[in-house]
């Protein structure tokens, strides 16, 4: 399934478009997407930091996603690095 991943914070440095689309085999869990995202980052983004991904979570528009959870049916997620609001 095709998954569109929105990039925020320091991940925006990786791709100025602010999102990336990846294909992951079904049935796909969040952990599968994490692995695919890391492989894509290492292969295509000089600014990619695996340590930042390890400290990040994936989320839908309404909630944070657990690693063993299925990916949202609409194929839209965001990767959220550590937050620093306020």
């Amino acid at each position: 399934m095709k998954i569109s991943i929105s990039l925020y914070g320091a991940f925006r440095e990786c791709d100025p478009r602010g999102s990336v689309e990846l294909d992951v085999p079904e049935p796909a869990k969040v952990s599968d997407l994490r692995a695919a995202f890391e492989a894509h980052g290492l292969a295509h983004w000089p600014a990619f930091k695996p340590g930042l991904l390890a400290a990040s979570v994936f989320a839908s528009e309404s909630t944070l996603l657990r690693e063993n959870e299925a990916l949202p049916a609409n194929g839209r997620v965001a990767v959220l690095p550590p937050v620093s609001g306020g």
Partner: protein
Amino acid sequence: MSEVECLIVDIAQARLDASAALEFVSDPGFGGITMFVGRVRDLNHGRSVLGVSYDMFDPLALKVFERACAEAAALVGPRIRTYVAHAKGRLAVGDLAVVVAAGTPHRDEAFRACRTLIEVVKHQAPIWKQEHYVDGDSVWSEGCSLCAAPDPGHTHSHEH
């Protein structure tokens, strides 16, 4: 009875308004009003700051703001009005980055509620700060890792 207002303010369109926050949380029955205002500082870790850019995942950020208000109400009871607003975009030194406010019958609940609001916003809302320094460098703040709700059956406690 709890009344809530949560806003994301694009700095290109408008500014945060502390007086609007005070007005929203006011009520004839409320003798205590507290507000926290976060502004952009001119110094960070000894480096002179020109400004700050805030990036935000808007739909989830608004949900976290609403949860912050619900947590404040759960803490002090239903007689409360709460307000959370955060700026996004490029801010200059002195600009308001965040305004939270709580109105309650007495001061103790108001202080506790306000503290809850700002802590939830700072530690749980999907917002990212990039500081722009006078020397031309820009750096994303390291921040706090978010943590998804544990799996059902997951019993160990976290230390944060």
